[in-house]
């Protein structure tokens, strides 16, 4: 009894300490966002801002059309998530369940494209979107996600492969065609994987820098990360504003995590059932 109590106490202490260590950088970021420039650069660093510079946050709002940036980011992210889920799961379903020639070879090719770094693809993409007259619009940023990205295909295919064939066969007996099986059986059964892919896509698109930096030119089309970067100039750092803006941009991601957490847990639980 006392032994297990001791073990519990020790593990709590260890966990508390390690979580404090994990929290430290985040806390220092929060403090940094509330400092004046002089405090921000002071040596030795002062942990606690004094006076607390709440105005950094309002200043950020004044320095650029941040509500515009946020709404641009939201449009791109939401459309990307929808497109990513639909396109990846459809392609994945085909790879997992439909027999067609060179299926495995094609799947290998798809996986192979994951190895190509984004910077290498950016010039051809730029030329394509230029010819489609889509530069300096938000379209290329989310359209690409509607064309099924390899990571999502891989993730969804693995989830679909885990579904026993019996479900499919009984659905077939009931008269379902492949699309119906995909829509009515596979999607509902893989909700946790969908949630995982949604969160991944959300985070990637919300934080994306390279593509928006290359495709967008007008300020009113900037997404949030580009807006945040534009607070610092070539010589003038204004780092405290950049930190404050970066913290603001974290809020939606935290919300998504809180919301999707139960699906993550559910995903790992259901792995052992049936």
């Amino acid at each position: 009894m006392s032994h297990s109590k001791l073990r519990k106490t020790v593990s709590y202490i260890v966990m508390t300490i390690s979580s404090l260590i994990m929290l430290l950088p985040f806390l220092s970021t929060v403090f940094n966002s509330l400092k004046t420039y002089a405090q921000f650069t002071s040596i030795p660093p002062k942990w606690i801002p004094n006076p607390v510079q709440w105005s950094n946050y309002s200043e950020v709002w004044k320095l650029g059309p941040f509500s515009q940036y946020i709404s641009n980011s939201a449009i791109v992210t939401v459309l990307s998530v929808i497109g990513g889920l639909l396109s990846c799961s459809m392609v994945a379903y085909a790879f997992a369940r439909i027999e067609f020639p060179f299926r495995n070879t094609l799947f290998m090719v798809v996986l192979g494209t994951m190895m190509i770094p984004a910077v290498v693809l950016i010039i051809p993409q730029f030329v394509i979107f230029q010819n489609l007259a889509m530069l300096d619009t938000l379209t290329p940023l989310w359209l690409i996600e509607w064309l099924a990205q390899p990571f999502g295909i891989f993730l969804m295919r693995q989830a679909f492969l885990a579904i026993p064939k019996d479900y499919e066969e009984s659905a077939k007996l009931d008269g379902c065609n492949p699309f119906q099986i995909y829509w009515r059986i596979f999607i509902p059964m893989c909700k946790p994987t969908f949630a995982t892919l949604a969160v991944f896509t959300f985070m990637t698109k919300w934080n994306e820098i390279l593509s928006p930096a290359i495709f967008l030119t007008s300020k009113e089309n900037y997404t949030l990360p580009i807006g945040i970067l534009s607070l610092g100039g070539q010589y003038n750092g204004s780092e405290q504003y950049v930190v404050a803006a970066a913290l603001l941009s974290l809020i939606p991601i935290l919300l998504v995590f809180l919301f999707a957490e139960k699906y993550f847990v559910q995903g790992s639980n259901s792995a052992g059932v049936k």
Partner: protein
Amino acid sequence: MKHLAFKRGALILAVLLFSSILLSACSSSDKEKEVTPSGEAVQEQVELRLGYYSSAQTDAKMQELVKKFQDSHPNIKVKTESSPYGQFFQKLDTQIAAGNAPDVWLSDGVLVPKYAERGALKDLTDLIGKDLKHDEYYGLDFNKDTNGKYWGVPQGIQIGVLYYNKDMFDAAKVAYPTTDWTWDDLKAAAEKLTLDSNGKYATDAAFDGKKVKEYGLTFFSITEGWMPVLKSFGGGVLDPTLQKSIINSPENKKALDWIVDGMNRHLFPTPADLKSFQSNMAPFPSKAAAMRIGIYARTMDANNAGLNYDVTLLPKGPDGKRFSPVIANSWVINKKAENQVGDAAWEWVKFWATTDEAQKEWASLGEAVPVKKSVANSEQFLNGKPANKQAFLDSFEFAGTLDVNAVWSEWVGKFNESINRAFQGEIPADQALSTADKDVQQVLNEFYKK
């Protein structure tokens, strides 16, 4: 029943797809609207794509100036394309590769030859000769290549001087720097100014070099680091053709020994020491360094931090030679901008350089020394902090670029690799120089000797 649900699913899908296509169509048709007005009624109208990097503060000022330009040039419609500094050049490289670069853009001074020698820029030699009087401007020649051609017109100029924190000099009872200083005078003062966390100066036997709280001089990379020292010691990196390395010279060895000695004695921070700061530029504004080799833009962070500081000329080398590093960020014109668009692009450059108002407005941001001499020498520029702004203007007499050529970023990277190892005491100075010489020459050969 099943059939109905399936239909509903398909319907949702269809609506989503349709709405997304609609959205994309809307956004692209907006764009077309901007392009179409070049119809019959407004034949003279020219659309000029103007690219520049900016921060939130500078962008507002730039927009103001663009508006003034359009007011005085009603036939030109400017379409601005701005990005944060780092992203701007990333995008520019993509745009150039895709043949879609802006008609006129702001280039970092050190990147002008990169674009010029790769054939992306228009030769401005004749236009400058026709429209700009050489004596009226600072730094036109900083964009002149080895064949005497001009590739850009400075937008604003960065020039190096010696910054010093008066409070720290007073506390250490050291006399302020003078224009007679040599680099050795600077080091002697730095020794009296370098302070450890126990309150002992570097002149004290009990000084602990591992716990420096305030450095005598902060020192970082090329512009605000080794280049002014190498050049005033009579050395340098490239010969006048800018295609051959002259790194392995006795002058450079002397200069490097001078720097390494300062770092060994902990009077200047090593590259590793700088890592403990918020940024490489932080030591001076955060009062962790009494002096810095600084360009004009550094007055902004010093002023923001409320320092009691001033500036003077950079010290002389052993033979009395001075050198002040210059970066002339410049307007350059796309080689493809021809006829009306090319004329409009030049109008913008001319507006920027020749109009007093544009020059004054831009100078008010405090980012750069104005290009037009009459404005730079006016009260408007010279007033304010630091008191001795004249030092920036006086430095033009012995100013030079950073041996800028088409592969500048590449060779600076190679040079820093070796030299930083010498600064950290990992390899001796002569080894660093001979390695750097080999590496830099290889970079040059790869580009120039095809």
